[in-house]
C-alpha cells in the first residue's frame, strides 16, 4: 500500500536538547538520529520523562535543538513552525473558547471563514460524540472529552505530518478504539505521515509501521522494531503470536533500560 | 507649537449653562476678547459683569468672556501667550513675571491698596505684629507672604524668626478658626475676614501697608506687550468700557451683587454683599479716576521686593505699567 518514500518527511540529524535549571544543565535528548518516510506511521515509546514530548516539540519547531539539525521534506528547516499538526500532551484547550471554536482554531488561523470552518468541524464533533457540547466551554467537559476536542483540532489542521503526544491517554477502551480507526482511515486515505507517542505498547504495535523505543533520559533510540503485520489489523490481532512476540520484545527492551525497579519489598 | 491665536477663544462647554456670556446675543460685528480672572467670580469682578450687562462692552464692539484658570500665576502666562487677551493679576506677580521675561503690562489698577493682610481672632491677644512673636502663623506657602510678614514684624520691632510659619495651603480661614494657627497672612481683609465673621468669630486685621510695607495695588488688569503693540486701540476700548462698568457697580452696589448672584447662582450672597461694601471704596480711593497707577508706588514696591530678595535681576518698574489707557478714557 505504501510506496517507497521519495524523500524523508522528517529527518533529525544528531539532535540533542539540554535544559538549564539555574546553572544546572539537564540533557534530556541524547544525540538522536531519526528518519521518517513519507506516509509512514511511526510509534514512539519510552519511559516517562525520557524526552518524547521534547522530541515532538523540537520537530514541531516550538523548541530548537541544542545541537543538531531538523530537516523537513529533504531540506533543512530551521524555522518550521506551522508545518506540522501537533497534538500536545496537555489538551491546551483555550478556556475562553467553546468546543467548536477550539476545534476550528487551526482553520481560523489559516483565514478560513468561521461558517465554512464550522461546517467542516460539525460532522466530526458528531462522530466524536461531542455534538451536544458544541457550545460548551472546556471547563464543562470531562477529561476524555477535552482530549477528543484537542485531537479533532489537530486533525483539522490538515497538515501532511501529524505529531501526536498521547492522543488517547484519557479515553476508555472503546472510544479509544474508535478514534484509532479514524486516525488510520485518515492516514491511509489522506496520505498523512504520523509520529505517535504512546505509553500503550499494544496501541503502538496496532497502529505503527515501525516502533521506536527510547532510552531513559537522555532519550536516544535504542531499538527499532518494524511491525511487519498485515493491515488492517483487527483488535483480535493482539493474541496473534507474532504480535505477542513483538510486544514482548518492546517490553523487554523497555524493562532492560528501566531505572525504576519494581520494588515489592518494603514500604 | 505656539499657542493658538487668541481670537480662537474656545467654546466653553458650559457656554449655554452657567457662563454669563450666553445671555447677550453675539452679533458678528463684535470682537471676541477674554479675561482670565484671578479667582472664582467675587465682588471685585462685578465691574466687568456690569460693563457686560449694561452693554458697555458691546458699545465698544467687544464680546468679553470671563475665564478662571487653575492657578493665579497662570493668568500671566495665559495673557502673555495670547490665550487670554486680558487678565487680572497682582502687582507682585507682574513684577516677578517681568523679571522672568514674561511680557505682561499692567493697564489699570483694580484695587488701590493691598487687600492681603494678617488676620487673627479677637481674644488671641494679637493686636499688632510684634504680638505674633512666639505664635504660629499660617500662610499659603508663598515667598511673598513671608516677605510681607517679615517687613511688618521688623517694622514693629520683631523678627520673622520669632514666629513659626506654617504652610496651610489654601485653608487659611479653616486653619485659623480651628486654632491650628494663631494668625494667618495671605487672606483678604475684604473677603476672608467676612467668612470668619460668618462663623461667629471676630477677626483682628493688621493691614500690611500700615506696618511698613509700601502701599501697592493688590489687583491689576494686565495685557501682553504684543496686544499693546498690535491692538492698542482695542485695549483702549476695553479699558474705557471696563471703567464705566466699575463706575456703575460702585454707583449701585446692590445691583452689582444682584448681578453677580444672578450670573453665578452658587455665590455666597451675604459674603459678597458685605465684601463689596468694604471693597468698592478701594476701587477709586485717592485717585481721580478708576484704574490710575502711580509710578512711585511701582518703583517703591519694586524696590521693596528687591530688598526682600523677592525680585532677582533687573526690572524696570516703569515699563511694568501704563496709565495711557486709563488717562485717555477719562
Amino acid at each position: 500500500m505504501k510506496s517507497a518514500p521519495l524523500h524523508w518527511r522528517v529527518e533529525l540529524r544528531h539532535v540533542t536538547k539540554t535544559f538549564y535549571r539555574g546553572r544546572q544543565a539537564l540533557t534530556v535528548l541524547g544525540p538522536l538520529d531519526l528518519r521518517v518516510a513519507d506516509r509512514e506511521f511511526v510509534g514512539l515509546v519510552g519511559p516517562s520523562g525520557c524526552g518524547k514530548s521534547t522530541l515532538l516539540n523540537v520537530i514541531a519547531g516550538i523548541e530548537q535543538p541544542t545541537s543538531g539539525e531538523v530537516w523537513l521534506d529533504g531540506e533543512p528547516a530551521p524555522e518550521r513552525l506551522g508545518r506540522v499538526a501537533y497534538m500536545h500532551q496537555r489538551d491546551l484547550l483555550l478556556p475562553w473558547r467553546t468546543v467548536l471554536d477550539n476545534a476550528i482554531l487551526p482553520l481560523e488561523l489559516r483565514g478560513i471563514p468561521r461558517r465554512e470552518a464550522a461546517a467542516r468541524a460539525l460532522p466530526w464533533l458528531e462522530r466524536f460524540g461531542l455534538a451536544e457540547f458544541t457550545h460548551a466551554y472546556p471547563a464543562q467537559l470531562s477529561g476524555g472529552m477535552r482530549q477528543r476536542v484537542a485531537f479533532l483540532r489537530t486533525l483539522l489542521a490538515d497538515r501532511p505530518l501529524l505529531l501526536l503526544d498521547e492522543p488517547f491517554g484519557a479515553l476508555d477502551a472503546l472510544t479509544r478504539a474508535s478514534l484509532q480507526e479514524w486516525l488510520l482511515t485518515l492516514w491511509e486515505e489522506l496520505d498523512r505521515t504520523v509520529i505517535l507517542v504512546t505509553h500503550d505498547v499494544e496501541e503502538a504495535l496496532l497502529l505503527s509501521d515501525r516502533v521506536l523505543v527510547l532510552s531513559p533520559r537522555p532519550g536516544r533510540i535504542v531499538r527499532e522494531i518494524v511491525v511487519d503485520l498485515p493491515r488492517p489489523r483487527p483488535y483480535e490481532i493482539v493474541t496473534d503470536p507474532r504480535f505477542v512476540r513483538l510486544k514482548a520484545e518492546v517490553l523487554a527492551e523497555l524493562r532492560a533500560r528501566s531505572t525504576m525497579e519494581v520494588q515489592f519489598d518494603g514500604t | 507649537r505656539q499657542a493658538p491665536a487668541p481670537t480662537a477663544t474656545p467654546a466653553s462647554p458650559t457656554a449655554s449653562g452657567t457662563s454669563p456670556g450666553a445671555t447677550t446675543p453675539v452679533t458678528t460685528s463684535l470682537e471676541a476678547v477674554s479675561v482670565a480672572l484671578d479667582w472664582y467670580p467675587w465682588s471685585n469682578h462685578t465691574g466687568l459683569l456690569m460693563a457686560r450687562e449694561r452693554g458697555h462692552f458691546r458699545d465698544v464692539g467687544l464680546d468679553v468672556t470671563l475665564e478662571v484658570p487653575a492657578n493665579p500665576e497662570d493668568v500671566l502666562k495665559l495673557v502673555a501667550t495670547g490665550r487670554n487677551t486680558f487678565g487680572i493679576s497682582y502687582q507682585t506677580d507682574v513684577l516677578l513675571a517681568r523679571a522672568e521675561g514674561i511680557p505682561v503690562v499692567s493697564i489699570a489698577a483694580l484695587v488701590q491698596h493691598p487687600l492681603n493682610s494678617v488676620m487673627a481672632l479677637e481674644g488671641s491677644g494679637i493686636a499688632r505684629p510684634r504680638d505674633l512673636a512666639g505664635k504660629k502663623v499660617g500662610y499659603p506657602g508663598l515667598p511673598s507672604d513671608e516677605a510681607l510678614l517679615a517687613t511688618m514684624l521688623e517694622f514693629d520691632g520683631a523678627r520673622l524668626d520669632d514666629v513659626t510659619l506654617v504652610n496651610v495651603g489654601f485653608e487659611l480661614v479653616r486653619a485659623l478658626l480651628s486654632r491650628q494657627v494663631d494668625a494667618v497672612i495671605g487672606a483678604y481683609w475684604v473677603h476672608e475676614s467676612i467668612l470668619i465673621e460668618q462663623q461667629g468669630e471676630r477677626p483682628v486685621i493688621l493691614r500690611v501697608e500700615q506696618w511698613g510695607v509700601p502701599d501697592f495695588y493688590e489687583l491689576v488688569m494686565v495685557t501682553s506687550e504684543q496686544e499693546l503693540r498690535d491692538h492698542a486701540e482695542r485695549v483702549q476700548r476695553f479699558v474705557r468700557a471696563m471703567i464705566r462698568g466699575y463706575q456703575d457697580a460702585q454707583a449701585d452696589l446692590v445691583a452689582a451683587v444682584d448681578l453677580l448672584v444672578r450670573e453665578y447662582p452658587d455665590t455666597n450672597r451675604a459674603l459678597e454683599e458685605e465684601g463689596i461694601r468694604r471693597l468698592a471704596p478701594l476701587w477709586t480711593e485717592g485717585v481721580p479716576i478708576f484704574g490710575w497707577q502711580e509710578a512711585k508706588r511701582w518703583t517703591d514696591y519694586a524696590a521693596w521686593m528687591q530688598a526682600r530678595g523677592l525680585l532677582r535681576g533687573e526690572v524696570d518698574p516703569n515699563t511694568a505699567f501704563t496709565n495711557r489707557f486709563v488717562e485717555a478714557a477719562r
Partner: protein
Amino acid sequence: MARDRLLTRDRIVPLLILVSVMLGWELATRVFQIPRWVLPPPSAVVQALIRDQRLLLRHLTVTLEEVGLGLTFSVLLAIVLAIGIVSSRLVERSVYPLVVASQAVPIVALAPILLIWFGYGLTPKVIVVVLVCFFPIAVNLVDGLRGVDPEFVDLVRSFGGTSWQTLRVVRIPGALPAFFSGLRVAAAVSVIGALIGEWVGSSAGLGYLMIRAASQFHTDRVFAAVLVSAVVSIGLFWIVGVVERIALPWRRSARTET
C-alpha cells in the same frame, strides 16, 4: 430557599451598616461638635443634596461628559500602548518609562500648558482624565498580555499562527481579566480625574462647584457634590463588573473540570 434568605440578609446587613455609619457620623459631629465647615453631618449633606439638586445635576452632566470621553480615550490609548509594549522590546524600553513618568507630572506643571495649548474647553479636562485613567489599564493589560500560559502561545505558533494572531487569539482573551481589573480602577478614579481637570480652568462641573463652594464655606454643598461623585464612581465601578461578566462568559461557567 435558604439561599434566598441569605441573599436578603446579604442585602440588609450592608444597608444596616451603611445606616449605622451615617448615624455614627451624625452623632460624632454633634457629640464632638465638629464644626460644619470641617465636616457637615450627613443630615446637612442630604439637605444640601435635596436643596441643590438641580445645581448638582447640571454640573454632574458636565463632569459625566468629561468622564465618559476620558475613559473611552483611556481605553484606546492603553490598548495601543500595551500592545506596542508587549510586541516590541524597543517600544517597551523607550515608551514604557515615559508612560510611567507621565504619572509623576503634577497638575501644577501641567495646567498652564494645557490651558495655553487647549484653552478652557472640554479638551484639557478630558486630557487630565485620560492621564489619570489610562495608566492602570495599560499596566494591567501589559501584565495580562504577558502573563498568559506560554503553552497556549506555543500552541498557536505550532499551528503556524503569526505573532499578531497569537495576540488576537491567545494574549488578548487571556489578558481580559487583568484588563478589567485595570478598567475597574480607572472607572473608580475617573471622576476624580475630571474633578482635577475642572480645577484647571472651568466654569462648570462638580469639581468647579466644589472649589467654589469650599471657598465660600458652603461645606454642605461640597460634601453633597462629593457624595454625587462617589455615587458616580461606584456606579462606573459596578458597570465595569457587569460588562466583565458579559464579556467573559467562560469564567462564569468555570467550575470543577475533572
